[in-house]
C-alpha cells in the first residue's frame, strides 16, 4: 500500500513568487494536515482538512492557503513568498480518529 506522497521533493522559488505543494494521502484517509518545519525547529501547524473541508488553520498569514479535493488529495499554496518561508513542508494523513497520522517525506521549499 502506498504511503503519503508529496510533490515536488524540492522547490526553489524567488521572493514574491507563488509556490504550490501537493499531497496524496494514504488510500481511505480523509484527513490531511499540513505543517511547516523550519531548519532545526519543530512542526508548526498550518492547516487541517477533513472530508473536503478546512477544519482549522494555524497562526499563519492568509497568503498560506490550501484546499482538499474530492479524492482527498490536498494542495498548499503560498503566495508572495518571503525568505523566511524557506522550510520543510510536511503533510500527514489520518483515517479513523483514533489512529495515528502518517507523514509524507516532505517538500523542501527554498526561497531565494
Amino acid at each position: 500500500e502506498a504511503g503519503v506522497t508529496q510533490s515536488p521533493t524540492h522547490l526553489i522559488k524567488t521572493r514574491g513568487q507563488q509556490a504550490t505543494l501537493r499531497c496524496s494521502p494514504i488510500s481511505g484517509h480523509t484527513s490531511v494536515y499540513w505543517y511547516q518545519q523550519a531548519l532545526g525547529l519543530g512542526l508548526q501547524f498550518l492547516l487541517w482538512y477533513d472530508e473536503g473541508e478546512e477544519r482549522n488553520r494555524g497562526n499563519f498569514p492568509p497568503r498560506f492557503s490550501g484546499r482538499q479535493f474530492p479524492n482527498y488529495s490536498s494542495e498548499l499554496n503560498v503566495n508572495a513568498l518571503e525568505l523566511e518561508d524557506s522550510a520543510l513542508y510536511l503533510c500527514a494523513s489520518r483515517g479513523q480518529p483514533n489512529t495515528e497520522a502518517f507523514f509524507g517525506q516532505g517538500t523542501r521549499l527554498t526561497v531565494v
Partner: protein
Amino acid sequence: ELKVEQNPLFLSMQEGKNYTIYCNYSTTSDRLYWYRQDPGKSLESLFVLLSNGAVKQEGRLMASLDTKARLSTLHITAAVHDLSATYFCAVVLNDMRFGAGTRLTVKP
C-alpha cells in the same frame, strides 16, 4: 489554544543509561502520539496513546499517558546509539499539535 511543551529540548546520554522525556499539554485530551525524526527525514510513528493510563512499549522505548495530569512520558532504557534522533509528542484535540521536540544524542 492548545499548548504542548516538551522537555528537555536537548538530551545527551551515555549508552546504557536510562532517561525520560516529558510532554505536558494545556487542554484535556485523551489522544497523544509519539514520533521519531532522523536528520533530514520525515516523521515515523512510534506510539499511539488513547486513554488515561495507557502504556505502550517497543524495544527500549516505553510511552505512557496520564490524562488527568496532562502528561505523557517517553522512557528510554539502556540507550544505544541507534536511538539518536529527535522525538516529538503530538496531542490531538481538534487538530494535531506538536511539542518542540527533544533532540537525543546517545554517546558511546
